[in-house]
């Protein structure tokens, strides 16, 4: 494999507080420290980049000791929450700013698209802006001329090409801008989350184009997104950053699973021992809830055509014959999809002790995405809710997209809260 990008111990430090107020005095102090060989940049008081905690230090590591390698033709996704260092990494890779420590080694020409339409001049026409924007992105006049027709066609603005771009609709503007960048003759294309601005059709077109770029012309693409859906469709490998630090780098499905596990509040297994997590009353208490597959292994990710199981372990403290376990399932848009009560074990007498119930949700029911489970215990006579824990248990539904599932060979997002398999018959 031909390594195109090699990142070694890459770190970037930013100053907290107001940068505009740097005074000559500060600089003199800095020069003096440099002069007497005090290296401020390695000062231990510098903190990791956790934006939620109040900082006591003057500096912060936006990126700290990042190492990875990228091979030719790979599509790499970069994920992490806001403030994880994704944009800083892209800025360093595209030479907007320089690292504080470490090195980036690059083979080939880099083109970066951190913003759509960088340098577009509103007074100039679409045609003039193609040349301006192309040149800013590093294309020669000849390259732009050669690609001109393709750019115009991709953007779909043939009719308006001689109109100043200030008269364009925002959609046309974005399409034209992406079209220029997509036709760059570079070996490495760096794309920030710029596609979020277009309509969904156009976003798909862009994602498709990016996929094309890598698979047909062997270009390497680095892509930042918060949209796990686009990441999983597009990327071969994913780099996962957290608070400026490296977490993991590996195959897309593995890293996305890790990311969703670590960053979402839902888990596939929850224990209720600690005093702050105790759920229940004097009749029933939750002990543990697990999401399992058909082989009883704890899992988080399920294919749409797999059964999802739940095991609820609970403690009964007082003998009762009026106790029902129920589950509520929500999708990631907080739509309450359904509720199910354990009617089989109802009227059974629970003497004090520890019990487990297991239930399977059928395959081919959910649409793709993260789902959350609420676990509840109730009595019917009189109707009492003993406990209800919502949102801490979850699982993720994915689609293999190999034609074997109920999406068939359709590759775009299928809308809807549920996606059952139905029998279609020709009559």
């Amino acid at each position, binding site marked *: 494999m031909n390594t195109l990008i090699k990142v070694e111990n890459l770190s970037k430090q930013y100053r907290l507080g107001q940068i505009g107020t740097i005074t000559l005095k500060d600089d003199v102090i800095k020069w003096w420290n440099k002069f007497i060989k005090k290296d401020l940049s390695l000062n231990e008081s510098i903190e990791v980049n956790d934006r939620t905690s109040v900082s006591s230090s003057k500096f912060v590591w936006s990126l700290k000791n990042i190492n990875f390698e990228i091979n030719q033709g790979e599509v790499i996704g970069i994920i992490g929450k806001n403030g994880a260092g994704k944009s800083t990494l892209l*800025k360093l890779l595209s030479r907007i700013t320089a*690292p504080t420590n470490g090195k980036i080694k690059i083979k080939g020409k880099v083109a970066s698209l951190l913003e759509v339409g960088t340098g577009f001049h509103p007074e100039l026409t679409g045609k003039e802006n193609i040349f301006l924007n192309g040149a800013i992105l590093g294309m020669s006049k000849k390259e732009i001329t050669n690609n001109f027709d393709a750019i115009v066609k991709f953007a779909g603005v043939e009719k308006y090409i001689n109109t100043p771009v200030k008269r364009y609709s925002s959609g046309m503007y974005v399409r034209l801008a992406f079209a220029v960048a997509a036709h760059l003759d570079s070996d490495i294309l760096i794309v920030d989350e710029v596609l979020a601005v277009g309509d969904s059709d156009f976003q798909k077109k862009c994602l498709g184009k990016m996929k094309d770029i890598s698979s047909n012309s062997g270009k390497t693409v680095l892509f930042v997104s918060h949209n796990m859906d686009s990441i999983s469709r597009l990327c071969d490998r994913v780099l996962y950053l957290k608070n400026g630090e490296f977490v993991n780098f590996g195959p897309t499905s593995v890293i996305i699973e890790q990311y969703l596990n670590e960053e979402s509040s839902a888990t596939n297994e929850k224990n209720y021992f600690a005093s702050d997590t105790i759920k229940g009353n004097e009749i029933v208490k939750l002990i543990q809830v697990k999401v399992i597959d058909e082989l009883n292994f704890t899992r988080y990710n399920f294919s749409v055509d797999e059964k999802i199981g739940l095991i609820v372990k609970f403690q009964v403290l007082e003998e009762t014959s009026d106790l029902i376990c129920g589950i509520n399932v929500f999708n990631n848009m907080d739509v309450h999809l359904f509720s199910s009560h354990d009617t089989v074990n109802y009227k059974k007498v629970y003497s004090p002790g520890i019990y487990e119930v297991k239930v399977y949700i059928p395959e081919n029911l959910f649409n793709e995405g993260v789902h959350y489970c609420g676990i509840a215990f109730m009595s019917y006579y009189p109707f009492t809710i003993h406990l209800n824990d919502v949102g801490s248990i979850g699982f993720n539904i994915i689609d293999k997209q190999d034609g074997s599932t109920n999406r068939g060979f359709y590759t775009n997002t299928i809308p809807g809260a549920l996606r059952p398999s139905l029998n279609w018959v020709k009559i």
Partner: protein
Amino acid sequence: MDKEYSDQTWDLVIESKNKFFNLNLKEIWEYKDLVWIFVKRDLISMNKQTILGPLWFFLAPLFTVVIYTFVFSEIANISTDGIPGPLFYLAGTTLWNYFQSCFIGTSSTFTSNANLFGKVYFPRIVIPLSLIISGLLKFSIQFIMFLGFVFYYYNQNLINPNYYIFCLPFLILLMAGIALGTGLIITSLTTKYRDLTYFISFGISLLMYITPVIYPISTIPNSIRFLVEYNPISPIIETFRFSFTGHGTFYFFDLLYSFIFMLIILLSGLTLFNKMEKTFMDTV
């Protein structure tokens, strides 16, 4: 040694420190189309939404000359060294305007292009270079008008153009070099010390008054003449005027002084610019 060797195969190594002086001419050449496009953008956007359009390139200096002739020549009665007033002022302002537009443009390179620089990489020096070139085109237009005046007064036998006019390319080079060098220093420092932006506007008019633009060097009292003589721009203006009119002064060593000053200021400017361009986005 092994590591050294493997470093050789990379096209680009991004590090925290730049080499002390690193003017990558090859890279700038690769971006020549961009330089040209910026020049065009400059010239086009300047005349957008004006009725007279490019005519302003002639009108602006003409008005200046009329005012100067009236104020300095008629009212203040300052000598023009025997050169007809309008030609005298036109000679001064044509070359001075070139310096001024290059200097002011270059000195706000970082602050006025922060948006662009924050989103895309290209050699930052492309912007000052394009300003120097678009300034040169504006200068050429005004210079043609100036030649018209020269021709008119020459026919009336009021002036004696001489072979020193072949110095002109060298004079322009000096002007461009000094404007670029000082502009680069100012823009590099303004990324941190914004105070300098206030200094630029009155600094440039102050500089004009210690440059023989509106008066000949011969009219300066001896007590303050050093101010004008140590100003490296003075010999350039004086030589320019002398070569086209035959009036005034020409000293080879004064020009040499300007040349050496230009080299030093340009090298320092490029060095400082090169140091700042990598991280200015963090401070701007």
